[in-house]
C-alpha cells in the first residue's frame, strides 16, 4: 500500500495512559526532539490529582498534549493523533480528538477487564473504527518480545512500552531517534541495561511502524524562527529563573520562603537547587511562614519572594498586608489552579484575580501582573522583582497551571540585555534616615540591619508620615492610606502601554489577560487570515492598568473579555472603565480555552453587530 502523505502546518498529538505509563516522559521526549529540529512546540501536561489513582480508571488517566510545527502558540485544541494506552485513556479523550483523527491503541490492554474498569462497553469501540483512523498495535506484547533476551524483570519490561509507542510516533512524523537515545544514555548512565532496553524498544517501535505502514505519514512545515540559542522551558522554571535574574541584575542576594503546593512546588524545588547561585530557599512549615520569612529577608536587604497557589495565597494575605504597610519589596508568585478551597489542584484556572487584587484587610493596594506564556514567565518574574525593588512594594505575579507546566522552545536571553534595576537603598553617607520620607514616585528609602546610623523600627501599626513612628492621628492615617495607594498608581508611568494585535481598525476587540494569550492570538490570527476583522488586546499589567487602557478600549464597538473564571477581569474593567460595554466569555472547567470556541463566540458577536 502506498503511504498517504498529509501536508500540514501544525499537528497536535496527545499521549494518554495510566498515570504509571510514563506519558509525561513520552510527551516530553517528543517535544524536545521536535524543538531540536526547529519546530515551534507548545505542550500541555494534564495529570490526575491522585499520584496513584486506581489503575485503568478514567480518573487515573494521565495525558500529555503537544502541538508542533509552524506559528504554534497553543498546545492545540484537539489532537490529530491520540495514543491511547488503555480503554480508560481512550474514553477520557475520545470526545476531544479531531474528526477523522488517527488513534493508536495498545490492543493488549483493550481487554474486557480493562473495558469494565474504564466503565465502557466494547460495542462503543466498534463505532470508533468507523469515525477514526484506528491503528491497532499489540504494544505490550511487542515490547515484551523486544526485550525477551534481556535480564530485566517482567515489571521493568512492561514499563518500557511507552517507548515502543514513542518509536511508532517518531516514525509517523519522521523524527530522528538520536535525541532520545542520548537522553537514555545520560539518564541511565549508571544502569546501562535499562538504557539499552529503552533504546531497543524505541527502535523496535519505530521499525514496527515502518513495517505495518498502514498509517498516514505527516509532513509538518517547520517554522522559520529567529537565529539564536534555544532551549525548552516551562513556566515554573522560567519564573524561578526570572527572579534569580532580577537578583543578579540588582546585585542582591535572593531569598525564597515557600511551602509546597501544586502546581507551584516546582518553583521552590528549582530555587532549592540554586545554592550554586547563592540563593537561599527556605521550606517553611506553612505558607504564612513562607511569606513571613521572606518579609524578614526583605527587611534584611534581600530580594525576597514567596511562591504558592490559590489556597496558599489565602493564607498569606495577612502577611501580604504587612508588606504593604511596611513598604518592603517582595514578590509573591501565585500559580493559579481550580478553586475554591482545594478545588481542582492539578487543573488550570484564572479565578484568583479578585483575591490578588482585593484579598486583604484594609486599604491594601498591591501591583498585580500576569505572565501569558511559559517562557515570558521569565520576563514577568523579572519585571515583578524590578517593580518591587524600584517602588518598594510587594508585587503579585499571577501565572497558572497551564503555563506553569506547559513548555515551549525559548530563545535564551542574555543577562546584559536585561533592563537595569535601581534599588532604593539609602546612601551610606546620608546624615539621617527618615524611613517614610517619599520621593516623587512616593517611594521610601530602604535601610537594612547592619547599616550604621540608620537604626529604625517598622511594623504593622500605622505610622507617621516621614518619621515612621507609630501614629493614631486620624488625618495621618488617611494621608498614609492615600500615599500608599498613589504610589501603586504611579507605577503606571513605568510600565509599557497596551498594544493591539490583529486588525486594529476592527469593530470587535478580543480582550484577555494572562495565560489565555496563546489561544486568543491564534484565534484572532486565523480569523484575520480568513478575512474576518477582529482585534486583540492582552493585559499583562492588571494593577495598575496601562495608561492607554481607556483610549484603546473606547475605540471598539464590542469588547469581548475571555477568561477562565466567572468574569472577574471583565468586572474589574467595568469598574475601572465603566463607559464601555463588555461582553463576557467565561469558562471554569479547569481547562484552557480552545481556539474553536473563541472563534465561535467572536462570530456570534459579529453577527449581532
Amino acid at each position, binding site marked *: 500500500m502506498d503511504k498517504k502523505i498529509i501536508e500540514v502546518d501544525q499537528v497536535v498529538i496527545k499521549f494518554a495512559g495510566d498515570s504509571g505509563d510514563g506519558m509525561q516522559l513520552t510527551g516530553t521526549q517528543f517535544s524536545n526532539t521536535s524543538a531540536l529540529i526547529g519546530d515551534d512546540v507548545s505542550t500541555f501536561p494534564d495529570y490526575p490529582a491522585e499520584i496513584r489513582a486506581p489503575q485503568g480508571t478514567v480518573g487515573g488517566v494521565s495525558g500529555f498534549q503537544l502541538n508542533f510545527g509552524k506559528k504554534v502558540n497553543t498546545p492545540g485544541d484537539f489532537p490529530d493523533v491520540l495514543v491511547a494506552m488503555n480503554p480508560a485513556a481512550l474514553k477520557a479523550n475520545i470526545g476531544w480528538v479531531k474528526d477523522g483523527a488517527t488513534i493508536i491503541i495498545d490492543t493488549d490492554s483493550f481487554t474486557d477487564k480493562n473495558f469494565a474498569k474504564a466503565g465502557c462497553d466494547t460495542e462503543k469501540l466498534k463505532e470508533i473504527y468507523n469515525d477514526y483512523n484506528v491503528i491497532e498495535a499489540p504494544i505490550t506484547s511487542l515490547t515484551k518480545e523486544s526485550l525477551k533476551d534481556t535480564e530485566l524483570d517482567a515489571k521493568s519490561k512492561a514499563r518500557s512500552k511507552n517507548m515502543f509507542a514513542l518509536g511508532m510516533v517518531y516514525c509517523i512524523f519522521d523524527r530522528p531517534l538520536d535525541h532520545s537515545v542520548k537522553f537514555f544514555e545520560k539518564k541511565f548512565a549508571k544502569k546501562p541495561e535499562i538504557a539499552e532496553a529503552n533504546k531497543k524498544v524505541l527502535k523496535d517501535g519505530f521499525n514496527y511502524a515502518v513495517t505495518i505502514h498502514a498509517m498516514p505519514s505527516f509532513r509538518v512545515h517547520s517554522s522559520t524562527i529567529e537565529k539564536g540559542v*534555544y532551549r525548552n522551558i516551562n513556566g515554573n522554571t522560567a519564573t524561578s529563573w526570572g527572579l534569580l535574574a532580577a537578583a543578579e541584575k540588582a546585585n542582591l542576594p535572593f531569598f525564597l520562603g515557600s511551602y509546597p503546593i501544586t502546581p507551584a512546588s516546582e518553583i521552590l524545588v528549582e530555587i532549592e537547587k540554586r545554592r550554586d547561585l547563592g540563593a537561599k530557599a527556605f521550606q517553611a*512549615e506553612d505558607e504564612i*511562614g513562607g511569606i513571613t520569612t521572606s518579609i524578614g529577608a526583605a527587611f534584611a536587604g534581600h530580594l525576597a519572594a514567596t511562591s504558592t497557589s490559590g489556597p496558599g495565597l489565602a493564607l498569606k494575605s495577612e502577611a501580604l498586608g504587612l508588606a504593604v504597610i511596611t513598604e518592603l519589596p517582595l514578590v509573591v508568585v501565585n500559580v493559579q489552579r481550580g478553586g475554591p478551597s482545594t478545588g481542582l489542584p492539578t487543573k488550570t484556572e484564572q479565578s484568583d484575580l479578585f483575591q490578588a487584587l482585593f484579598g486583604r484587610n484594609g486599604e491594601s493596594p498591591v501591583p498585580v501582573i500576569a505572565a501569558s506564556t511559559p517562557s515570558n514567565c521569565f520576563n514577568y518574574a523579572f519585571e515583578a522583582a524590578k517593580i518591587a525593588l524600584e517602588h518598594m512594594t510587594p508585587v503579585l505575579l499571577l501565572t497558572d497551571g497551564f503555563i506553569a507546566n506547559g513548555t515551549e522552545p525559548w530563545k535564551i536571553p542574555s543577562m546584559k540585555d536585561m533592563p537595569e534595576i535601581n534599588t532604593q537603598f539609602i546612601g551610606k553617607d546620608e546624615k539621617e534616615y527618615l524611613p517614610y520620607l517619599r520621593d516623587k514616585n512616593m517611594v521610601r528609602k530602604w535601610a537594612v540591619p547592619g547599616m550604621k546610623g540608620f537604626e529604625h523600627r517598622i511594623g504593622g501599626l500605622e505610622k507617621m508620615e516621614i518619621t515612621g513612628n507609630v501614629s493614631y492621628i486620624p488625618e495621618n492615617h488617611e494621608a498614609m492610606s492615600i500615599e500608599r495607594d498613589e504610589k501603586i498608581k504611579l507605577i503606571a508611568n513605568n510600565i509599557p502601554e497596551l498594544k493591539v494585535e490583529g486588525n486594529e481598525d476592527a469593530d470587535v476587540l478580543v480582550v484577555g489577560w494572562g495565560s489565555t494569550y496563546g489561544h486568543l492570538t491564534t484565534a484572532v490570527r486565523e480569523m484575520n487570515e480568513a478575512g474576518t476583522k477582529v482585534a486583540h488586546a492582552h493585559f499583562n499589567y492588571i494593577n495598575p492598568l496601562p495608561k492607554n487602557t481607556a483610549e484603546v478600549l473606547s475605540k471598539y464597538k464590542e469588547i469581548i473579555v475571555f477568561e477562565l473564571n466567572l468574569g472577574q477581569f471583565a468586572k474589574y474593567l467595568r469598574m475601572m472603565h465603566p463607559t464601555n460595554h463588555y461582553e463576557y466569555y467565561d469558562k471554569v472547567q479547569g481547562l484552557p480555552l480552545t481556539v474553536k470556541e473563541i472563534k465561535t463566540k467572536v462570530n456570534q458577536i459579529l453577527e449581532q453587530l
Partner: protein
Amino acid sequence: MADTKYNFKDFKSDQEIRWCPGCGDIAILMSVQKAMAALDYDKEDYAVISGIGCSSRFPYYMNTYGFHGIHGRAGVLASGVKVANPKLSVWQITGDGDGLAIGGNHFIHEIRRNIDLNIILFNNQIYGLTKGQYSPTSLFGQVTKSSPYGTIEQPFHPGELVIGARGKFFARTIDNKVADTTEILIEADKHKGASVVEILQNCVIYNNGAHSAITSKETRDDNQIWLKHGEPMIFGKEKNKGLVLDGLNLKVVTIGENGVTKDDILVHDAHQELPYIHLALINMAVADGFPVAFGIIRSVEAPTYEILLEEQIKEVQSRSKIKNVDDLLHSGNTWNVD
C-alpha cells in the same frame, strides 16, 4: 568586633513607653538593654523582632533595628532576618499568646531547625493586649474574661514544648530580677542556636500576682531553685534543701536529715544531650512540693540552620559549573538555530 562600648541607655529609643505602670515588661526592657550593652556587637547589628501583644511593642522602645510584625509570626519574621543575614544578633520578642497559641507552629519549627535566635517568651499567662482572655499557659480552672467559669484547658509548659521540639537551650527567669535576667540573656545570645528564655512576667492589670506563689518575698527562697551548670541543686532559705534522684524521679531532700549530705545532691549538667533530667526540672511545680527551676536549664551545642545553609551554599558553589544566571540559562539541553 565592636568599636564602641555601650551603656544600656544607648539602646533606649525616643519613644514614650506605653506599658501600664508596674508592668513586668518595663523591667525586661532594662535587662535586654543591659545585655545588649554588655555583648560584643555593634549597635546596627542588633535586630529586635516581635509579633503582636503588649510585649510585642518592645522593638519600638529599642534604639536598634526593629520590626513589629503580625500576631504569631515573630518566629518566622525573625527566622527570615537571621537566615538572610547570619551576622546579625536577632532577638525575637513574643508573648504566651503570640508564641504558643497563634504562633505555636512557628515556635516549634524554629526550635527544631535550631536557627540562632534569642527567643524571649514573655509569659504572663494571659492575653494582655486584648484585655484579659486566657492563654495557652493560663492555669487549669483560671477565671478570665473568656473563661468566666474557669478554663477547662490544660496549659502548656513552654520548656516542655522546647524539649519536645528537640530544643537545645532553655532558660527561665523572672521579670524583676534584672541582674539575673541580664546574665541569662547574655548567655542566651552567646549560645549558638535557638535559645528560648521564658520570663515569668507580671501583668498588673489582667493577671496580677499570677506568679506570686513563686515570687513573693515570703515564699521565694523555698519555691525557687536557681540552677548553675556544674553546681549542686541546692535551694531554700537555709540553703539546706536539695534535689536528688529517687529511681527515675526527682525528690526534694534536706541536707543533714536522714543522713543526706551535700555530696548526695544532684549536680546540674546543662550540657547533657539527653533531656530527661532537664524535662523533670522544667516540670517542677510548687503544687507538687517542688521549687520552680530558674536559670539556664539546658544548653547543648548543635549545628545551626543558617550556618549549615551557608556551608552548603559554599560546598555546592565549589563544584557547580553554574556561576551566574547566564550559565544557568544555558545549562541542560540547548540548541542553535542559524
